[in-house]
């Protein structure tokens, strides 16, 4: 009886921890967006770095293409999402 009660408490704790983690993640994203600052053009040394591009790199396009052939899911990463390939 006590064991099942403890298990129930344990499960509830896990669920509550998961919810907390999710909330923390959401809060962090929102907080970081809230803390956006207006970065001047001359301060964009790091942001303009080739590796900081917010898109798939030219080198990755080939990889994305064959992942489109190999997987049922595609898109939202700058690659093809439908059409243009003889695949599902």
């Amino acid at each position: 009886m006590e064991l099942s009660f403890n298990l129930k408490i344990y499960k509830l704790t896990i669920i509550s921890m998961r919810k907390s983690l999710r909330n923390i993640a959401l809060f962090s994203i929102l907080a970081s967006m809230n803390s956006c600052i207006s970065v001047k053009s001359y301060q964009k040394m790091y942001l303009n770095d080739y590796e900081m591009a917010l898109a798939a790199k030219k080198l990755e396009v080939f990889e994305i293409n064959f992942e489109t052939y190999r997987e049922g899911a595609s898109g939202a990463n700058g690659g093809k999402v439908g059409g243009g390939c003889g695949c599902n």
Partner: protein
Amino acid sequence: MQLIHKHENSNPVIEFDSVIWHFVQSYIDSYTSSASSQDVRTFATISYNRKNLKAGETYGIRAGFSTEYDYRSFSAGLSYTKEWNHGNSELNLTTQAFFDDWSIIYPYELRGKVTLPGSARKSLNAQANFFQVINKRLQLGISAELIQMSGLLSTPFHRIYFKDISIPDIERLPDTRLKVPLGIRVNYHLRDYMIARTFYRYYWDDFGIYSNTFEIELPVKLSLALTMGPFYRYHRQTGSKYFAPFQTHLSTEIFYTSDYDLSAFESHKYGLTIRYSPLLDYFVPEKSLLLTGFS
């Protein structure tokens, strides 16, 4: 082989990309699995973009084509981009249409016994991207897409073996499909010599596939010219409601596929990107190499 030609003026910009890929299928024994052990894919796009510097708006049109041994595709699209907050925020809206056509090649033993209603495929894509600079080292991009496909969505060369009868058929799938991928990319310049590139995608379609994909890459600048980046990619998807393995489908079903692209699976990809890009050496152009492994 990749050839990229660019002609840029300050405003407007005309860009032309042409690429030829030669695929060679690798195999683990002395037999290749199909006649398509190699193929050549050629594709090219031309785009014209005009930027209004005062309003921070860019309008663009693009057209392209792609050919494979048994496939041809033509595409056309429009795009609109708006920048504000000194270029720290950007919204991009893109729409694109693909008009494709198959050269239908049926499995040898089924030729003359099976037919498909048509060989054309049409895809309409609508995409919204939002980019935001968070601070001097951190930026993110959110992408949402909607893809409506119609026409021949099955692959005509795939055989299906049934549980109840011995005569096989080709893959049969609905003639419409709706796909919705949502992605977020966060890049952080951790140190002067190290960057963290992360990407997450949630995907849903009306074939019954849900997927989660996560990628992380950590490029490290070993010198001004040399960057090496280990990466890891995790992909997990549920199977399509039309998928069943070999000799599991019943011949009374309307739609069926045994293509494992549409099955439930998870994959791990890991590797290393090596990029050599000398700053002031015009005789040695930029070179990149991607080494990958799968499980």
